């Protein structure tokens, strides 16, 4: 087999690449495992070769982790740490965070150990870091800016003629969005409406800051305004807490929040399969009820066998939607509030595959695009860049790779899947207007965010880096 490796010139399709070569190689002696000497040669690799090797190592390592071969995984990690670096080039940085994530994944099999290593971060420190990093993400990427622009435009257009407007922000972390909305409402021809904003966030400090900024602005412009904070994570949110009143026109903004709701389902479905039978779905597309009526028996059996997958298989939808418990309940509850407009911004990548390898492969591409973008815009020495990479993207990567079940909140899915889910819950798509898209495109051009594109896909906007779709913004209305 080693001989086969040496006659490698692309004549046979099997041995035409180094990656392929590795797979067919049968390896010789384990003696050099502990020896550091081979690693010296690694330093001499050219960046491109190093990058390719890193990719290969990551896949290898993930494969080992997935199959439980810890020794091999360990060896791969060792190599990876020699080559990867958060200060290096793009591929090195990505590899660094994926390596950490894979290591975390292994470590989680000893929960005590894992928690002990992560126990010395104080909450105050964490909160302020988080806030800072969120602000960095906002500044360094156009994504949030475009999202806020499109969201506000859609709200303004939907609220034409409305006198009482209530906006619910499911991730109230950036006052800039609503400051712009207040201004826009102020300049509309029929005058500003009575505006009420309800902000949902898990950190009280953030909500306080937001309240302060918004109230200050509204007072300056003399607009009747009210801010209602709701301190809660979206998973624990009860729509009653939102206090929607009759007679007011409701708008909902969800920026990178809904995917968190896909997370609780594994545990939830297994524990509470009977409770889910009595889900209230006025739209009539109640998957559990369909099962009950068609089978004439409790759907528990089906559910426990297939963990919820068969629910959607029996319904009228064309694509089966996995884990449809919690998110559908939430969307239905929101639908029950009859919002005039709901604008959803989500990642447009499939990071919710059920196997590690699937997720790793997909997320490699996504984060490669995001890190590439930083590489072209920000110098390598920038501490802010390192912070965003580590604390914003690094944390996402860690969550996608290392966590499972309800802990894995970063369950990004493609726009098509989201559209289907939201549509099933009783919403109709509101295409983003020509002016909104125009403004969004000009925002990108004006800022010199070259390389970004906004595509339009069935009335929704998809923000891409080069050709890779990254985030999507879509608007929906309540369809009765």
């Amino acid at each position, binding site marked *: 087999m080693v001989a086969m490796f040496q006659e490698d010139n692309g004549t046979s399709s099997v041995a*035409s690449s180094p990656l392929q070569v590795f797979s067919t190689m049968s390896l010789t002696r384990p003696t050099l495992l502990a020896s550091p000497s*081979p690693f010296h040669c690694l330093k001499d*690799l050219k960046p491109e070769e190093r990058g390719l090797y890193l990719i290969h190592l990551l896949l290898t390592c993930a494969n080992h982790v997935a199959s439980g071969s810890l020794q091999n995984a360990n060896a791969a990690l060792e190599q990876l740490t020699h080559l990867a670096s958060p200060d290096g080039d793009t591929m090195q940085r990505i590899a660094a965070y994926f390596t950490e994530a894979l290591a975390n994944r292994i470590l989680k099999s000893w929960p005590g150990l894992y928690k002990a290593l992560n126990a010395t971060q104080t909450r105050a420190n964490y909160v302020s870091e988080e806030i800072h990093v969120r602000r960095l993400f906002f*500044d360094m990427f156009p994504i949030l800016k475009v999202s806020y622009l499109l969201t506000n435009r859609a709200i303004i257009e939907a609220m034409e003629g409305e006198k009482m407007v209530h906006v619910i922000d499911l991730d109230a972390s950036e006052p800039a969005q609503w400051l712009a909305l207040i*201004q826009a409402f102020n300049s509309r021809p029929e005058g500003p409406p009575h505006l009420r904003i309800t902000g949902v966030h898990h950190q009280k400090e953030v909500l306080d800051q937001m309240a302060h900024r918004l109230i200050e602005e509204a007072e300056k412009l003399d607009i009747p305004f009210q801010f209602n904070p709701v301190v809660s994570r979206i998973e624990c949110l009860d729509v009653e807490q939102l206090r929607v009143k009759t007679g007011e026109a409701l708008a909902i903004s969800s920026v990178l929040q809904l995917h968190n709701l896909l997370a609780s389902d594994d545990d939830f479905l297994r524990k509470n399969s009977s409770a889910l039978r009595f889900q209230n779905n006025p739209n009539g597309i109640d998957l559990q009820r369909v099962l009950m009526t068609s089978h004439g028996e409790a759907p528990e059996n089906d559910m426990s066998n297939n963990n919820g997958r068969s629910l959607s298989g029996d319904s009228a939808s064309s694509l089966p939607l996995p*884990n449809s418990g919690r998110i559908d309940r939430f969307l239905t509850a929101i639908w029950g509030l009859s919002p005039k407009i709901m604008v959803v911004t989500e990642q447009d990548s499939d990071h919710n595959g*059920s196997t590690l390898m699937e997720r790793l*492969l997909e997320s490699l591409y996504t984060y*490669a695009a995001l890190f590439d973008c930083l590489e072209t815009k920000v110098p390598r020495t920038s501490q802010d860049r390192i912070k965003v990479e580590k604390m914003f993207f690094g944390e996402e990567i860690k969550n996608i790779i290392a966590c499972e079940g309800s802990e894995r909140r970063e369950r990004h899915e493609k726009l098509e899947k989201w559209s289907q889910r939201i549509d099933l819950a009783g919403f109709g798509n509101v295409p983003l207007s020509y002016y909104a898209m125009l403004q969004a495109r000009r925002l990108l*051009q004006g800022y010199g965010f070259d390389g970004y594109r906004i595509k339009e896909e069935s009335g929704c906007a998809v923000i891409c880096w080069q050709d890779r779709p990254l985030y999507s913004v879509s608007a929906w209305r309540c369809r009765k």
Partner: protein
Amino acid sequence: MMMNKDMSRHHQQQVEENMSNLTSASGDQASVSETSGSNFHYNVNPNMQQEQSFAPQSSQKKKRNQPGNPDPEAEVMALSPRTLMATNRFICEICNKGFQRDQNLQLHKRGHNLPWKLKQRSSKDVIRKKVYVCPEPGCVHHHPSRALGDLTGIKKHFFRKHGEKKWKCEKCSKKYAVQSDWKAHSKTCGTKEYKCDCGTLFSRRDSFITHRAFCDALAEESARAIPNPILIQSSSPSPSHHHHHLQSQQSINFSSSSSQNIITNNNLHGHEFSMKQEEPQHHFQNIPSWLASSNPNPNGSSVNLFPLASPSTTGRSNFHHSSPAMSATALLQKAAQMGPTKSTNAPDEEERSSSRSSYNNLITTTMAAMMTSPPEPAFGFQDYYMMNQHHHRHGGGEAFNGAFVTRDEKNDDGGGETRDFLGLRSLMSDNEILSFANLGNCINTSASEQQHSHQD
């Protein structure tokens, strides 16, 4: 005789004036004025206009309410869809002829030479103005506060919004629910067309102008020529000194220059767009808020909303990497391409083989060091994965509680060939390489099989 003619002309004018108050589309007036021109024998009588109450000496036009704000005193009429769609609602009692509009019926009845008393409607009670609501429950106009003041208006609205589009333009196959809309369209369809450089066609001059000013194609060209927010001004006659001023400050004081830029823009575009409800203007007011910096900005008081990053991180300054590194995306694509199937391209192979040879030499030593050997070297890769297939269970969602890895370590695979963690020697199977080449589709059955076989 002369008197009659004069009166008739005068009356006709008045009728037409009044008709214009009642009906919303011009197409309808034609039919009314035609009939009004034909013989009639009574004096100017405002009673025929039953739908509106106005003073008998109404040579002045009746004041119209603002659209969307109906008279609060008006009587709300909620007609059923059937009634709205009925074509001949008004029936002459004498000859049972049906008419679409009450006025037409009245005019017709005059031809029957009725005695005076029967001709008059009882104008004793105050005739309240009637407003109409749409019967469709989800509709905006369903609520009395958004009622429409006109029967024909509500009928047209109902057809347009909630009706079936039965009329189709032959030229452009655009469909209409209301016949008058269709007629009006087919008169102008294809008559005038404006074409933008980007290829979009417009029938209206105003929308063409708007579009052209902001057309992406133009914008891109300008963006390439002048990488600066000035591109917004490229199509407009802005003062050139702004241009220079902005360019000089380009790389440094991005924020303040752009906000100046936008202020100019607002003035420009304010008069350029007379068409819509000043929407363009406060569009631009959104953009300045994005551009203002969080640093003390002399220009923007109201525009300090979406602060730019501090200059150190905007990245618009030039920084140099040591070598032109390949982007991570490109690396991934290259890795995917270096899959098993590519044995064809000769020129590529040369490159690859040269880089590969040095690479491969390195690999032999390092990978040999890294991996451990299996007990049976003869075991083929495919066989290895095939072996695990009968352990495959479709587990649906993952059952990981954080302890899954420990479970994985236990060898529940009775075969004993390869599942031993010391024994795994294959890094990636052909299947995996293929799926790697298909990155994004994730048809990674072998890996998933591995994983599933360790669950529960």
